[in-house]
């Protein structure tokens, strides 16, 4: 196998060495080995690092011939096993697809674009563009590690999504390799034929590659909208006394449609307290709810927005912290994991939620936390005028298997709470397949499955992700029942382990 792969990628970019393979069986989340091996076979047989679409094409054709599944991996910065093999096979690491083209000006829309290779990180692309007076429109909160292709394959919501929408809206064209090994270039449906050139054979369409986690094709290059570096930036940090006022401020910010509103980041008092225990965020008064409000754009637009925001903060009995505090928070926007210094073993649920329900969600979350003796540490981004992307983290202890397994059941409580208020799990991957019914209605689930069958009839690409639960245990009813049962033991286990880490 190694020889065949080295023939395609060269000696140094293909490996079957167990030491090298091991890290590719892992992503950000810790999942006890007993669960992982019960449900999956995550260790790839081989890992390759192609440098071109042509190499990927040859790899896919080879995998098809020898009948082994292919999983694609970018930054490996998600927590849902999106890029972890379920059935071993070949893993394609895209990190050597690096670089971006010269800026192009779209004559019709007068907007700038670049062709960027899928393996670049968002931070590297942004740094590179800024040397030329441009910047990415939006980026994930994991921009230093997430790759361009990776985020496009996920939900695509993050910092800058309020004005620019999902990253999927910024993709003008895309090059990819299909499940049959064809190399295709697809334009945005509203910008030209959605299916063109060699794509007829496989029937792949532009939208088959947006947010589908590498299950319908492997993205190699993207034509991405970029923006000019804004004339002015302003980063305000407002604190509020309760969730009601904070939620009202978030709704107001979304509803006002400021052209310069770039990002709004919420931190719960528990999140701030956890950071403060590690020696950070000392400028923020304890017990407060904070909103970092990031404005970017033309000078007068930013200045005008600042005046209005100040008035609204005052109206909601909030306080704007001194200049510089917001800028510092903005500079540290990729460092939310610092809270692991205080809580080193965290579990999480990430979901989209209507902003109008944010205050209610938070109130009920607090009650749930009190009832179950769970510290819930929350942060959120406004990702559209009406939607927030909410991350709820809670402590566990991966050194204690029983504690960790019973704690996993709490994630299901969080999704249930979010769902009752119109929320949805953000990413599917493997671990969230039991929640598919909460994310898509039947019609959408059927349509997704139909597309998968049409473009990848042999389920070669990233099997087990994004569609029907791949295992009876992950069936929504079985899983739901299992979580309820495990959850029943949780209070007892926590009581026995009282004083354990994170409590």
């Amino acid at each position, binding site marked *: 196998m190694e020889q065949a792969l080295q023939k395609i990628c060269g000696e140094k970019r293909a490996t079957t060495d167990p030491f090298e393979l091991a*890290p590719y069986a892992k992503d950000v989340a810790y999942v006890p080995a007993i669960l992982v091996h019960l449900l999956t076979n995550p260790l790839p047989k081989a*890992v390759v690092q192609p440098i071109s679409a042509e190499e990927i094409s040859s790899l896919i054709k080879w995998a098809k011939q020898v009948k082994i599944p292919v999983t694609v991996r970018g930054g490996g910065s998600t927590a849902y096993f999106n890029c972890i093999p379920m059935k071993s096979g070949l893993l394609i690491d895209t990190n050597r697809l690096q670089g971006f083209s010269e800026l192009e000006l779209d004559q019709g829309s007068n907007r700038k674009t670049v062709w960027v290779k899928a393996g670049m*990180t968002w931070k590297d692309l942004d740094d590179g563009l800024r040397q030329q007076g441009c910047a990415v429109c939006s980026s994930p909160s994991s921009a230093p590690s997430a790759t361009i292709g990776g985020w496009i394959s996920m939900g695509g919501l993050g910092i800058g999504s309020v004005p620019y929408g999902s990253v999927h809206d910024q993709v003008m064209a895309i090059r990819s390799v299909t499940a049959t090994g064809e190399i295709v270039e697809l334009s945005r449906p509203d910008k030209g034929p959605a299916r063109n050139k060699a794509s007829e054979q496989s029937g792949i369409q532009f939208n088959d590659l947006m947010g589908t986690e590498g299950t319908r094709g492997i993205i190699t290059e993207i034509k991405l909208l970029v923006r000019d570096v804004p004339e002015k930036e302003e980063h305000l940090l407002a604190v509020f006394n309760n969730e009601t006022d904070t939620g009202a401020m978030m709704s107001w910010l979304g509803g006002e449609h400021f052209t310069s509103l770039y990002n709004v980041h919420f931190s719960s008092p528990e999140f701030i307290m956890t950071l403060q225990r590690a020696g*950070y965020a000392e400028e923020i008064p304890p017990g407060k709810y904070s909103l970092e409000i990031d404005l970017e754009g033309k000078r007068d637009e930013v200045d005008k927005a600042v005046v209005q925001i100040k008035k609204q903060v005052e109206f909601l009995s909030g306080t704007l912290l001194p200049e510089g505090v917001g800028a510092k928070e903005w500079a540290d926007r990729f*460092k939310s994991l*610092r809270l*692991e210094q205080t809580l080193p073993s965290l579990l999480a649920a990430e979901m989209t939620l209507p902003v109008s329900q944010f205050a209610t969600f938070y109130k009920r979350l607090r009650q749930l936390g009190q009832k179950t003796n769970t510290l819930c540490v929350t942060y959120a981004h406004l990702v559209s005028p009406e939607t927030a992307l909410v991350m709820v983290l809670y402590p566990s202890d991966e050194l204690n298997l029983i504690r960790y397994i019973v704690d996993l059941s709490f994630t299901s409580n969080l999704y249930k709470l979010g769902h009752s208020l119109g929320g949805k799990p953000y990413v599917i991957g493997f671990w969230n397949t039991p929640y598919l019914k909460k994310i898509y209605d039947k019609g959408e689930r059927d349509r997704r499955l139909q597309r998968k069958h049409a473009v990848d009839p042999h389920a070669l690409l990233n099997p087990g992700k994004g569609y029907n639960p791949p295992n009876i245990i992950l069936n929504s009813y079985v899983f739901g029942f299992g979580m309820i049962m495990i959850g029943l033991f949780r209070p007892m286990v926590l009581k026995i382990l009282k004083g354990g880490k994170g409590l």
Partner: protein
Amino acid sequence: MKTIEELHKRIAETSYICGSCGSCRSVCPVYREIGWESSAPRRKIALAKEVFLKKKEKEATKQYAQRLQECTLCGKCAEICAAGINTRELWLNLREDLRARGMEHPNLTQMASQIKATHNISTFPNEARLDWAEDLDEVEVEVSKAGSEVAYFVGCVSSFYPMSVGISESIVSLLDRAEVNYTVLGSEEWCCGFPLIASGNAQQVVELAKHNVEKVRALGVKTLITGCASCYHTWTHGYPTILGEDLGFEVLHATQYMARLIRTKQLVPGSLGETVTYHDPCDLGRNSGIYDEPREILLAIEGLSFVEMPHRRDLADCCGGGGNLAAVDKDLSQAIALKRAREAVATGATILTSACQQCVQTLQMAARQEKLPLEVLDVTELLWRSLEE
């Protein structure tokens, strides 16, 4: 000195913090060359977690040891770490543990023996430390001169390696031109111990630290200057910790001292019509916080056109010469250096400067090997050249 149990506890606690987010990947010069996840800082920490937190000793394999030693200690991973981990300290602790396990790279073990035998990193006897000064026609370098205000700690590389003696020659020439009352330690200068610290062998540094500090104190100087960024870091960060006391004199990097001389007009730079860029040495910049003075000197040279590289100051890329990497994998070190040298060429500069003898040497070799149109010099060499011309 910490016990092995304390060391293990510290590693276990630190590794537990890592969330495996991978922010460290794309900034790591080693990962960018090797490409496999096993070479990324997050994977090294994940393995440390297995070994020290979960007590899976079988994970401490030869490949694990090799990966831990394939690191320039540039500290860029610490700068970007989303969890705020002091990764540089973690790498040193892990190397200390490797030594205790007998898994240290043989070249590093040999280097430690060499330093023990000659008190320098070369194979030359320490008495040859001042051979470089013999080529100076107009400057007389005096050893352990009583009543001196300044002591110049030359460092092993620019004492013994012909490629780098231009740095020490320039520094003494500049001191002489500014009429500074200075002296050097000659054969009483011992290796600062930085290569040992980088090997996780801080214990062997104690003797070197005691000796060097004692000799400098005996001179009664107000200021000690070093031309080497790693010597500077060792004197300012390592020695006070190792000895548990203040040194009793000021320690400055040569660029800080020269910038001071320029500010007080004791030294007036000449002119040079060159386009120049500057590489921040990791041990002077990111690890010691000194960014401005080298630039201040370059900007004071008349006619010089200064251009910055995209990766600069706290985000500067490593030259590949740090952390004893060249002793563990010379090709890897050179590959990293080449990338940095190419970044310098892309700015349009014809001269790449730095403020570290190791950086200059490593980048010089890469530029020569690839026949890049780039001259690599220390800032002090360029400053002296401006005066000579």
